[in-house]
């Protein structure tokens, strides 16, 4: 007699298979035969009907995995039928969710050769496009996970929660029932979770409705909605559950299984390598993230870079962190710091902690204090009751505190520090928890200090952070946070608590300020020195022909920077003297027939003057003439600026000159031949 549960299972399988009806019914028949045989055998060996059914199905594996394998085998080569559950109606999705919940993979799981959803098919593992956004990988991080969701669960059974979410977003959710039972959880485990950041008016209206037993008001349209993935985190956490995404399905399992479920994925890092990142640096960065690696910890994932492709085998959460890291590294915009995960959300929450508040608690129970803060600042604070309980602190712990107009963070610190409690951002929400718990939730932030430090200073700064901040560091204390420097691009990846991150940001701000001061001082000093130098008088010798020198002796002080020369008004000004400097003999070639020899005249082509001789005439005999040019030296003592002006002037005049300094070093000029050559 065909068992009803088997029919449901085969029915579901049929819906997931994209095959012809004959093929589907053929597979159904065959598998039904197998299930029934096994069932009978189990019952005969003494098992109850329910147990026999469950075991037979468990041994088979979940329908989803089977469907994948069968469609691979189909000669029509239809792949990934499972991804097409969007084509399936809501009813079937709900049924599927129910069935998935009921027939969740058993203790054997879906691991092992064949039938593993997690196994990537060769050729499917295409590297993610090398753009800035590695989170655009739709298979691993489908858009549905970021969809804002408003919920209001109060002691709602877990199965209903999953059905609701699955139906709301049209995404199949597979709950590992056996895993839950192993963990001592039932499908109707109550879940309480309320939508975030609702305005006070809503709370009041809601309270009123609850008191008057009236229907609850609908969530206001602008209620802050939370991305589905965070919501799943918040639902799973108190139940010690975890979840991951694989081949388009959300799997909810015990937390350890979430970590153990490994997915291979390839990332195209061409762009990053081109931008100067080295492979070894990338490996170091990845190993800084919060993950287990088999070659470090003995168990966990693996990573390898071949060519321009980084291949990683890790659980879903680590893949997300890696994608976030790669995206931020690829970003060309300079961001002073960036939280790897949900940066904007994190910053918003941190700013909430800075809001001012005035309190007067006298033996007020802790949870009332928290409610007060939440109401006054219109924020949502989650109390980690498990963590508190473990520390022996109840939510009714009396608090005494009187402060006025202080930031919330400070009020919390004063009130709760003695209890070793703190308020921190954990997984996208403000959480009241123990300090020990807070230390376990470290945040990865990428700092860009390239505008403040460069070269070795970047590493030095990183070490300074570790040495001076009040936090646990792996390098120093053996456990805790970590910092990794990318010297070339002036970036540092730091994994630490927000307390330490705030200190780091302060340190960077101080450094930035003092660098500005230092820069200012340096430029000023440099400018002053330059000015002084420019004003210092130096003596230069300007050599030129005597006639020009004669003229310039009086001309220069009148024309070039007249106010800078010595005078009654300016006793420290420059002066100019003429000194005879012998003669220069120039050898002049060519057909100079008239006019004066050109100074610098080794270039007869400059101005050959021809007589009326016809060009057809054969060459005029070359004449070699020696011309004697008397020269003089103008000794000028002036500032650098004025010397420069003089040079310009002389060149503009068109005379030939050169100048040397007091040591005879040639400084410039157009006069050929060495200066100072006396003969």
């Amino acid at each position: 007699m065909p068992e009803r549960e088997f029919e449901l299972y085969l029915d579901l399988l049929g819906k997931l298979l994209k095959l012809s009806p004959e093929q589907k019914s053929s597979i159904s028949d065959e598998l039904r035969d197998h299930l029934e045989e096994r069932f009978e055998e189990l019952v005969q060996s003494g098992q109850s009907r329910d147990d026999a059914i469950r075991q037979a199905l468990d041994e088979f594996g979940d329908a989803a995995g089977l469907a994948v394998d069968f469609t691979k085998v189909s000669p029509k080569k239809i792949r990934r039928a499972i991804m097409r559950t969007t084509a399936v109606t809501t009813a079937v999705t709900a049924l599927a969710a129910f069935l998935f919940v009921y027939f969740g993979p058993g203790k054997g799981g879906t691991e092992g050769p064949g039938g593993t959803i997690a196994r990537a098919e060769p050729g499917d593992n295409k590297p993610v496009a090398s753009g800035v956004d590695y989170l655009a990988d739709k298979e691993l991080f489908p858009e549905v996970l970021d969809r804002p969701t408003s919920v209001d669960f109060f002691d709602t059974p877990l199965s209903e929660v999953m059905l609701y979410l699955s139906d709301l977003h049209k995404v199949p959710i597979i709950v590992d029932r056996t895993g839950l039972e192993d963990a001592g959880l039932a499908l109707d485990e109550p879940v309480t979770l309320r939508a975030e950041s609702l305005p006070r008016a809503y709370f009041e209206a809601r309270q009123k409705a609850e008191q008057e037993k009236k229907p609850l008001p609908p969530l206001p349209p602008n209620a802050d909605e939370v991305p589905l993935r965070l919501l799943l985190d918040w639902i799973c956490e108190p139940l010690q559950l975890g979840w991951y995404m694989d081949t388009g399905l959300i799997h909810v399992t015990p937390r350890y299984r979430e970590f153990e479920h490994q997915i291979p994925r390839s990332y195209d890092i061409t762009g990053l390598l081109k931008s100067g990142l080295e492979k070894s640096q990338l490996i170091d960065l990845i190993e800084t993230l919060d993950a287990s690696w088999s070659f470090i910890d003995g168990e966990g994932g693996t990573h390898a870079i071949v060519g321009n492709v980084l291949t990683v085998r890790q659980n879903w959460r680590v893949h997300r962190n890696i994608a976030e890291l790669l995206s931020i590294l690829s970003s060309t915009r300079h961001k002073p710091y960036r939280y790897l995960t949900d940066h904007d959300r994190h910053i918003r929450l941190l700013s909430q902690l800075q809001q001012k508040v005035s309190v007067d608690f006298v033996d007020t129970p802790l949870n009332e204090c928290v409610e007060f803060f939440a109401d006054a600042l219109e924020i949502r604070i989650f109390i980690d009751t498990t963590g508190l309980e473990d520390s022996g602190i109840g939510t009714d712990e009396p608090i005494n505190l009187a402060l006025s107009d202080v930031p919330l963070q400070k009020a919390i610190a004063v009130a709760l520090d003695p209890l070793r409690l703190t308020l921190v951002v954990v997984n996208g929400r403000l959480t009241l928890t123990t300090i020990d718990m807070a230390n376990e939730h470290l945040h990865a932030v990428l700092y860009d200090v390239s505008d403040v430090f460069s070269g070795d200073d970047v590493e030095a700064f990183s070490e300074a952070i570790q040495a001076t901040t009040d936090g646990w560091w792996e390098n120093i204390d053996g456990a805790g946070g970590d910092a990794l420097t990318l010297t070339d691009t002036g970036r540092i990846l730091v994994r630490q608590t927000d307390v330490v991150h705030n200190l780091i940001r302060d340190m960077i701000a101080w450094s930035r300020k003092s660098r500005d001061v230092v820069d200012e001082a340096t430029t000023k000093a440099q400018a002053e020195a330059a000015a002084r130098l420019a004003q210092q008088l130096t003596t230069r010798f300007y050599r030129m022909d005597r006639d020009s020198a004669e003229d310039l002796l009086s001309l220069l002080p009148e024309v070039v920077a007249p106010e800078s020369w010595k005078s009654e008004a300016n006793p420290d000004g420059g002066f100019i003297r003429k000194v005879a400097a012998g003669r220069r003999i120039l050898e002049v070639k060519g057909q100079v027939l008239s006019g004066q020899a050109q100074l610098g005249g080794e270039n007869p082509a400059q101005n050959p003057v021809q007589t009326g001789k016809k060009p057809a005439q054969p060459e005029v005999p070359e004449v070699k003439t020696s011309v004697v040019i008397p020269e003089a030296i103008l000794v000028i003592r002036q500032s650098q600026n004025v010397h420069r002006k003089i040079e310009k002037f002389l060149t503009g005049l068109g005379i030939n000159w050169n100048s040397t300094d007091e040591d005879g070093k040639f400084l410039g000029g157009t006069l050929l031949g060495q200066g100072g050559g006396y003969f």
Partner: protein
Amino acid sequence: MSSLNPELVRGSLDLMILSVLSDGAQYGYLIQQKLKAASGEMIELKAGTMYPILHRLESNKLVRCRWDESTGRRRKWYELTVAGKKHLKKRVGEWQAYVQCLQRILGPLVDPSPQPA
């Protein structure tokens, strides 16, 4: 798969199934049980693994199927085709050669009478 390295087993599943079928026509559940018995319970092939392999062997024409309703429900029987028998013989030959080669290489490391762990 109890104590054998799954990596080693994975490559020879086809061969194992074909060899079970060399005894005569069988249906899926039976093949699974026979494999378990023949291997001294070392090979416990999951249905989710076996059926896709059987279907592949069928589409490659190494086995042929027929339906039978004598038990009251539809049952699918598999048997080797001529091509399947030849394929099996060839693969067995390959395996023997491989094993001998490996034994030569491993030489003194090989325990002359290996027992399952």
